[in-house]
């Protein structure tokens, strides 16, 4: 299933609805880069609230996605990492360095707005 990408003003919101395979993740990355380029988005929110596990592939994909979007002029913020997921991630050494994070969608959008201001 493709992850729906919603446009909200100058921002794009990718709301992950279920656990993703590696292929779907790569697809999401391609879609987001494509959308961001076409819509000239200022920021992207990736909502991972429903994920109850984040493996090294997912972490790496999100990191490279953030860096690529940065090159396209869009800030990226990953939102909704759950406590258990966060704890497991640091234990595995997956700290999403250089990627902004926020508590939830609302916080993520506020963060992007504050950054634009």
């Amino acid at each position: 299933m493709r992850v729906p990408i919603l446009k909200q003003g100058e921002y794009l919101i990718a709301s992950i609805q279920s656990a993703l395979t590696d292929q779907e993740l790569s697809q999401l990355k391609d879609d987001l880069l494509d959308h961001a380029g076409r819509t000239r988005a200022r920021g992207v929110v990736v909502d991972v609230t429903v994920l109850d596990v984040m493996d090294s592939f997912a972490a790496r994909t999100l990191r490279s996605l953030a860096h690529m979007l940065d090159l396209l002029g869009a800030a990226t913020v990953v939102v909704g990492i759950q406590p258990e997921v966060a704890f497991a991630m640091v234990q595995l050494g997956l700290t999403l360095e250089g990627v902004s994070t926020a508590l939830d969608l609302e916080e993520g959008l506020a963060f992007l707005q504050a950054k634009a201001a």
Partner: protein
Amino acid sequence: MSSKPKPLPQPPPESTAALLRELVAHLRENRIQLREEWVRRITESKLLTAMTREEIFAEATSVYDNYVEVLETGSVEALQTYARNLSERIIPRGVETHEVVGIVLLLRDVLARSLFRKYQGDFELLNRVLDAYEPAANRIANTVAVSFVEERERTIRLQQEAIRELSTPVLQVRERMLILPIIGVLDSQRARQLTEQLLRGIRANRAKVVVIDITGVPSVDSTAANHLVQTVEASRLMGARVIVTGLSSEVAQTLVTIGVELGKINAVGDLQSGMEEAERLLGYRVILEESAA
């Protein structure tokens, strides 16, 4: 014990049991003297300094009687129970393991000496008596030492549980700002529990800034420091910034010396500055009203 040793002409005892019976009779007979001798040697060796002479005497009497009983019956259960009770009484007073082992070994020696004196005319018999006595005596020493150590470990376990249960509160002091005062040793298990609590607190209170105060952490080694780094990073993944406060100068020195990577940690001197920094990050301004002062 007779002051002038005289080898008693005795029929050679048939078995170990018979020898032990004889032994027990001898120890009962000379109870008062042997016990005094023992207490004298305990005091001389400067053992059980935490206890008064009367207490030592009272305990020595009980231990002596238990000791003889074990030699008689061969069952250590009563002694075990007694040793456990004794440990329970004396551990809080700071009696050390070496003292407990020391006094039991002293008793063994005192009794062995008295046997030497009693049987010195008959070397063969002495040998057999010692053959019967030594295993039993060693078993007793073993039982008392093990009971003491077990009791100590039980105490330590209980204390550890108590410390663990002293839950670390995650407190909200301003809208979207949490404080986590850590008191006590930061071991792996506790760090894990603490991090989980904090992360749940971040979600529940929608916190943006967390102040972790480690004034109450006595020492920070590389393990504890790494736990701290993990807590900070996990909080960041949930979108909260962490300010660590209360690093003492010793702790700071240790951390730099052992080379922990604390670059990702935002550290501030004391809790007050930490809270002020957090307020600044959240956009609060605290104003002191002139009239209130």
